[in-house]
């Protein structure tokens, strides 16, 4: 699986290009800072620094950009945990338990869990990539639109099991989100729902919509509070607690492994990426966990599952890009552009001809993941100070940054206006107990769902039996159905246990009353 002669050559490249190592820390800091700003995504951070890499040699450029990628993967979880605003779509599932832990005053521990899960699974993802980069090229070539559609549907339907109290409201929110995601011109050239606005031709911009939906639920309601966190204790920053969180991560090897595997697989599928991977990893961990009822209420396993999938998805998407030259998402598309700016075209030929360079890139990413641990702790310490500031100072600043972040997407007023419109929708969704997550993911996946469904329809000629020719799609559908059956069974079991517990408590209470009457 590993070509040892090429591996030794890669170590040689690493040793002789020590100057490139100097780009790791600046890259990590750029990634951490950018993605911690709500509205500035990993892709945007990488796109902004891309021109800088033009003046570096190829290896230094790749080291710098992948460092930004690694830093941004974790950076997004800082506002997700502290303020319930994911810095990027990839950190969405981190908000479920991360913010709940923060509200309980455990934000230091939550950040520690997120950082260590990111570090370990980042390393794990790349170590695995080291072994599978060659055979993976053959597997990924077999993924077609039907498989992509099945994976996206799975991601969408899983939202029903993500803590929605009312199934009907969850499903309506998901369907509404998907429809919002299809506004504009579809791949067949039909224009729908634009109301004559040219800016809607490309669809609703997901970043402003996402920030709007989430900002309404939290930021506006903070207006009546003096501090973001009520308890005085909760505003204390402690490196010791962060480190205890880091250490605590090792207690959940199963969660780390599952999250990593899901992250790598989903990350390797082009177009799906870590924004779905973290949701699936979270949902699967919740489903298989004995204490699933505590998920969404500050269970560390939720934070670890989501972050492990995000970190390992980086390795997965790099695998697709290196093996096929197909970017798994926006960030790897920027990397692909950087490769091309240096006249290098990744793909099976690149792996074959430049094997030592491929291994050197992978090894350097492992070094970056280790460096993230040190840089990340320093960054957390600074970022955690945010909760010490009074709401009257932090709220206007965050709202201004978020609004300008939406303007930064395409430099038009449509971003801020989208933010405001979705802020109102988000407020109503929270008010009437609809899962905002379902709408957000629907918007993110709507277009992809339609495109892949359309391609599958065209390939099959409208014959539903086409699925029988696609064992991969059948396997995904099978796993999806199994997952739902298991979820339903788990929920039923949980409801039965709760009912039994309630009955036992009732009996105890009655016995107490009867005992008191006798005496």
């Amino acid at each position: 699986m590993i070509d040892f002669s090429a591996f030794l050559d890669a170590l040689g490249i690493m040793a002789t290009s020590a100057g490139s190592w100097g780009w790791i820390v600046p890259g990590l800091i750029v990634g951490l800072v950018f993605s911690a700003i709500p509205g500035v995504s990993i892709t945007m951070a990488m796109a902004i620094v891309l021109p800088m890499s033009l003046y570096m040699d190829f290896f230094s450029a790749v080291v710098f950009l992948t460092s930004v990628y690694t830093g941004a993967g974790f950076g997004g979880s800082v506002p997700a945990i502290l303020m319930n605003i994911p810095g990027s779509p990839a950190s969405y599932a981190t908000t479920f338990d991360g913010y709940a832990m923060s509200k309980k005053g455990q934000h230091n521990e939550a950040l520690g869990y997120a950082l260590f899960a990111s570090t370990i699974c980042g390393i794990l993802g790349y170590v695995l990539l080291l072994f599978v980069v060659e055979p993976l090229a053959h597997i990924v070539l077999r993924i077609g639109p039907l498989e992509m559609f099945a994976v996206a549907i799975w991601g969408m339907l899983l939202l029903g099991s993500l803590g929605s109290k009312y199934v009907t409201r969850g499903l309506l929110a998901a369907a509404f989100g998907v429809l919002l995601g299809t506004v504009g011109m579809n791949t067949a050239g039909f224009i729908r729902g634009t109301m004559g606005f040219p800016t809607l031709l490309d669809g609703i911009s997901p970043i402003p919509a996402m920030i709007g939906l989430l900002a309404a639920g939290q930021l506006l309601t903070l207006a009546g509070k003096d501090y973001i966190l009520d308890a005085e204790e909760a505003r204390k920053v402690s490196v010791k607690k962060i480190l205890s969180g880091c250490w605590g991560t090792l207690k959940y090897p199963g969660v780390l492994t599952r999250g990593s595997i899901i992250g790598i697989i989903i990350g390797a599928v082009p177009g799906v990426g870590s924004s779905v991977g973290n949701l699936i990893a979270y949902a699967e961990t919740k489903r298989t966990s004995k204490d699933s009822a505590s998920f969404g209420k500050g269970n560390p396993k939720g934070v670890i599952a989501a972050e492990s999938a995000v970190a390992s998805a980086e390795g997965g998407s790099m695998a697709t890009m290196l093996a096929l030259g197909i970017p798994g998402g926006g960030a790897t598309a920027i990397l692909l552009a950087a490769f091309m700016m240096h006249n290098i075209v990744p793909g099976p030929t690149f792996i074959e001809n430049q094997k030592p360079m491929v291994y050197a890139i992978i090894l350097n990413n492992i070094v970056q993941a280790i460096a993230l641990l040190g840089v990340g702790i320093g960054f957390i310490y600074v970022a955690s100070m945010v909760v010490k500031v009074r709401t009257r100072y932090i709220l206007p600043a965050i709202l201004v940054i978020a609004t300008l972040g939406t303007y930064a997407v395409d430099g038009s007023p449509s971003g801020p206006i989208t933010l405001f419109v979705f802020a109102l929708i988000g407020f109503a969704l929270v008010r009437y107990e609809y899962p905002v997550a379902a709408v957000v993911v629907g918007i993110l996946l709507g277009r992809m769902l339609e495109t892949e469904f359309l391609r599958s329809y065209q390939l099959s000629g409208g014959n539903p039996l086409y699925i029988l020719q696609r064992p991969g799609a059948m396997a995904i559908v099978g796993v999806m159905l199994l997952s739902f059956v298991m979820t339903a069974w788990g929920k039923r079991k949980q409801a039965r246990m709760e009912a039994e517990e309630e009955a036992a408590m009732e009996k105890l209470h009655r016995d107490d009353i009867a005992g008191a009457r006798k005496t």
Partner: protein
Amino acid sequence: MRFRGHEYRVDRGHLVFVCAIAAAVAWYLFDTRSVSTSVNNLLLVEPVSLFALAMAALIIPQCFVRADHAENTEEKKEEEYDPLAPKLPTERAQVIKMLSLGVSLGVFVFALNVIGFDIAIFLFAMAAMAICGERRPLHLVLFSAAVAAAAIYGFRMLIPYPMYTVIL
């Protein structure tokens, strides 16, 4: 509201919200069908829209709750601790603050290209601070000016798009 001998409470806000979503979905379906009835156009939108309308039809009865059930549910809700349950302000003063901030945000986003990013940010930051309880004039002016300057100069360095400003 009385129906079949039982007193019902109507959650008017929720009813309006569900009906608004259903109306938006129905309009989108109508708009899509008016563009073309080709399968390539309706493949995903039509089934998802019909599904959404069916869900909305199932949710509408949830807006009508029997008065005696509603009281029990409210009592139960108070007993449960759920850190992520929606906790919207209920006190009049807090609701007014929240709505004022929402309105300020709306005015801010529409004013950006009209009065300039710098002035709009300065005024919004000042309004937001005042809404959140800041009353000291010097703090209001200095902090708002600092936010405006940091945001304008910071984003100018980060983004390639021009921002219309009056002073900065």
